[in-house]
């Protein structure tokens, strides 16, 4: 097929929206939409080789205003993120197209909002200058407000707090835009990068800080992370998967483009925060490290599976930022790759959790257990997902984590390396708690006759799990486009091969590692099954219980307060200062609102007029 330019994709998206809005609640429409998303993904894939060679998919969507030509075209980085978006959207719609659709009333709203979201995100990914970026950014935040508020009630409140944070971010970006416009009076990236040094140093600092706050809010970087967990947890299954996978990565994409392409990592290294304590890059890296650690250990305490995963989404976001800002070929490659990896296993995990709650009706970890015998496919998907999320070898999560660790060590930042590992260990603990409380342990009485989720829901899960494994086995597939991305951005390129990376000082070849693992597990299985006598299957009540006889009515399961020792040691650290900060701001706003309203509701308001006249005249006399 000839090289498709962006207009075809935009056209398909509009068709998407049209179908979703008009016939959203028809039974077959889910499948058509999935096909459309996959078609869009394929159309980008076919012309992907063009992108890899650094060319650009141009579109006819341009307009000039105030001597600024705003043009939309898709570069390789946009293409990479677009692929992830289409993958996530396609599989999410596939998940919701089958039997699940009947269990969810406002399915038409869901499909149309999903289509709108994908369209807005593609617009953002294809934006080519600050003005286009800002327009698309506002659209994305508005449309994700819609999709978050879809369930009403609790998720409506979460959506309201989200949109306030989003507007705070948008205003920060707008201020940065205006300051840039004042210095370079142009919005195009090339021009801004060219004129960047004309700005005074502390103005540069302000602009970078504003941009980070603006984009960081969408990525839920530490001080602004409170909105994301409830927003991504209390939404229906496909939306949670879609949002968890890609929505908050839009902030990362924007930050990635702005910080690396426009501002340039060297500028960030030379920018010093006031009083010369710490330079901007280290400040950001530590912010990212904290964003990795704190949400992960908050996730540890969650009892609702969806919230646990949502908090992990925030944590992994910090990890990606850590990678991208490490100013090292491996680090940036790891950061971007982690976006893909996280998208794949986060979506898989959300699907698994929601398929459990679809069958059992609840996602509360204290009321589940022992479902492995009833829902084997969901278990395998969740197993693959948690190995990916924890970043253990066979899965793709390990590769991006390895890259980022190697970068941190090579750049000589051992403490950051330690912080990252603490984050990962926390992930392993909380992830085991997730799989143990849902699938392992005693099966409850009421879940006796639970069946596996229908095929329409389990196939997308399995596809995702296989993607996680395959990209883990052959990371070269991703590294190829990442290297192309690094070259377009003008940052140092990682030298990769199909199996992984070989730097001078310690390299990684996943093909070897994974094949040896498979071989070793084969040997282990050989030893285990061949030697020794045949095994005898035993029911869950035939357990050692210190002499008691286990009966089905007694709940013999340990899942609540899973890590008591750890919790006793670190519970003093949970002081949720950010929560108090947030409610303090809200109460001051309400107080000021009350005052200014009372100011107007005055019986004798002429007094103010006269006071003003006298004061201003006195001021005039004083001048």
């Amino acid at each position, binding site marked *: 097929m000839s090289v498709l330019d962006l207009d075809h994709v935009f056209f398909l998206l509009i068709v998407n929206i049209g179908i979703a809005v008009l016939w959203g609640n028809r039974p077959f429409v889910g499948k058509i939409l999935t096909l459309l998303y996959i078609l869009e993904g394929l159309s980008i894939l076919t012309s992907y080789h063009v992108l890899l060679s650094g060319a650009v998919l141009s579109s006819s969507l341009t307009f000039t205003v105030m001597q600024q030509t705003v043009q939309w075209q898709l570069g390789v980085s946009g293409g990479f993120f677009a692929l992830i978006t289409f993958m996530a959207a396609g599989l999410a719609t596939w998940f919701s197209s089958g039997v699940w659709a009947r269990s969810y009333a406002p399915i038409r709203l869901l499909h149309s909002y999903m289509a709108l979201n994908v369209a807005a995100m593609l617009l953002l990914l294809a934006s080519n200058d600050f003005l286009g970026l800002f327009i698309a950014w506002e659209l994305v935040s508005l449309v994700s407000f819609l999709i978050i508020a879809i369930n009403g009630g609790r998720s409506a409140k979460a959506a309201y707090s989200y949109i306030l944070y989003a507007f705070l971010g948008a205003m920060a970006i707008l201020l940065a835009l205006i300051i840039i416009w004042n210095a370079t009076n142009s919005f195009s990236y090339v021009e801004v990068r060219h004129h960047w040094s004309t700005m005074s140093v502390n103005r540069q600092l302000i602009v970078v800080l504003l941009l980070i706050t603006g984009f960081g809010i969408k990525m839920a970087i530490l001080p602004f992370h409170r909105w994301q967990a409830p927003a991504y947890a209390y939404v229906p299954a496909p939306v949670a998967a879609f949002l968890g996978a890609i929505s908050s990565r839009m902030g990362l994409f924007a930050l990635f483009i702005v910080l690396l392409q426009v501002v340039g990592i060297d500028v960030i290294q030379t920018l010093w925060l006031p009083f010369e304590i710490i330079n901007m890059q280290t400040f950001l890296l530590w912010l990212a490290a904290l964003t990795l650690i704190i949400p992960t250990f908050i996730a540890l305490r969650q009892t609702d599976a969806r919230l646990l995963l949502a908090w992990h989404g925030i944590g992994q976001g910090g990890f990606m930022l850590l990678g991208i800002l490490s100013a090292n070929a491996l680090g940036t490659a790891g950061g971007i790759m982690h976006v893909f990896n996280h998208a794949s296993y986060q979506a898989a995990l959300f699907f698994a959790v929601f398929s459990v709650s679809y069958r059992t009706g609840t996602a509360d970890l204290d009321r589940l257990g*022992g479902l*492995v015998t009833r829902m084997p496919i969901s278990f395998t998907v969740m197993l693959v997902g948690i*190995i990916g999320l*924890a970043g253990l*070898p066979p899965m793709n999560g*390990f590769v991006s984590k390895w890259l980022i660790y190697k970068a941190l*060590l090579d750049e*000589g930042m*051992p403490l950051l*390396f*330690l912080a990252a*590992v*603490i984050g990962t*260990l*926390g992930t*392993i603990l909380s992830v085991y708690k997730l*799989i*143990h409380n849902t*699938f*392992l*342990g005693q*099966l409850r009485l009421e879940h006796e006759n639970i069946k596996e989720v229908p095929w329409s829901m389990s196939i997308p899960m399995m596809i995702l799990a296989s993607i996680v494994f395959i990209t883990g086995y052959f990371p070269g597939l991703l590294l190829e486009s990442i290297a192309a991305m690094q070259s377009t951005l003008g940052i140092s390129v990682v030298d990769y091969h199909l*199996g992984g990376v070989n730097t001078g*000082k*310690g*390299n*990684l*070849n996943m093909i*070897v*590692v994974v094949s*040896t*693992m498979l071989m*070793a*597990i*084969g*040997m*282990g*299985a050989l*030893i*285990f099954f061949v*030697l*020794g*006598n045949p*095994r*005898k299957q*035993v029911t869950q009540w035939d*357990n*050692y*219980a210190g002499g008691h006889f286990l009966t089905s009515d007694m709940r*013999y*399961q*340990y*899942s609540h307060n*899973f*890590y*008591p*020792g*750890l919790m*006793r*040691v670190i519970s003093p650290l949970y002081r949720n200062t950010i929560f108090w900060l947030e409610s303090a701001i809200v109460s001051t706003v309400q107080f000021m609102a009350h005052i200014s309203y009372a100011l107007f509701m005055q019986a004798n308001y002429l007094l103010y007029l006269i006071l003003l006249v006298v004061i201003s005249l006195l001021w005039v006399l004083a001048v």
Partner: protein
Amino acid sequence: MSGQHIFLELILMPLLAFMIGLFLVLMMRKVRARIERRVGPPFLQPLWDIIKLYVKKMQISHGVIHDLGIIMLLGGYITAEVFLPVPGMSGFTSQGDIITLIYLMMVPSLGLALGVGQCANPNGSIGISRALTAMLAYDIPFIVVIAGACLYYGTTDLTEIIALQKSQQWGLLSMPILALAGLIAIHAMLGKEPFEIYVAPAEIATGPMVEMSGKYLGSLFVMQCLQIYTITVLYTSLFLGGGYTWFDFIPKLFLVALLPVMITVIFPRYKTDDVLRWLWKWPTGLALLGLAIVVLQG
């Protein structure tokens, strides 16, 4: 390296690891007995224990995942063996570095956790939560030690580290504090006395082993041998210059395994909270101090 040469090493390395592991376990039990003024087990006792467990008639399994967990357990360490630098055999050391090794060592603990989880015995789950908390506890100082070492050597590839130590001086001499902290961390990783809450025989009723019997328990013993071997080889290659020939490699391993045993004998068991607090206080402090020295040396 021709294909069958690789294949030979793939088979030989784990076997060697298992044998050396057996002798290390034997040595530990012998030394412990001697200190407690008793004779100690005969020469091949650990091997016989494993064989006894494997040939048991009643092999009770609690489900597919229970078996899969054990297989993952063995597989994890067998893969780790292949990546360890052993004199004479290079194996796949060039394809994966120390970070890969650390993660490969986490795979078995996850496998064990899954297996135990499937046994649906809350005591097992409590044991696993203690094991994972302990893992969190000892991994942090260990990571700091590794960070310090890698920073000092400038590379994360084990064969290069060994070559560097051959040309310069042993890691032990150049980074004494880090080596000490590493030793304590290894002590905890081996699950020896003060930190053996999750594998202690007395805690068997509440530990992960509660539902393990027969060849499941046997595989755990195999895992223990492989674990000791892996950890000691890792430590030697980092701080004791690795093995140039088998004759200086084996004594180093026994030396590294000997020190923790000396300490374990005289200590009671910590509770999980104290394991956490102690390991996060002293070894981590030492390791950070060593790291600071390495960083300052530039």
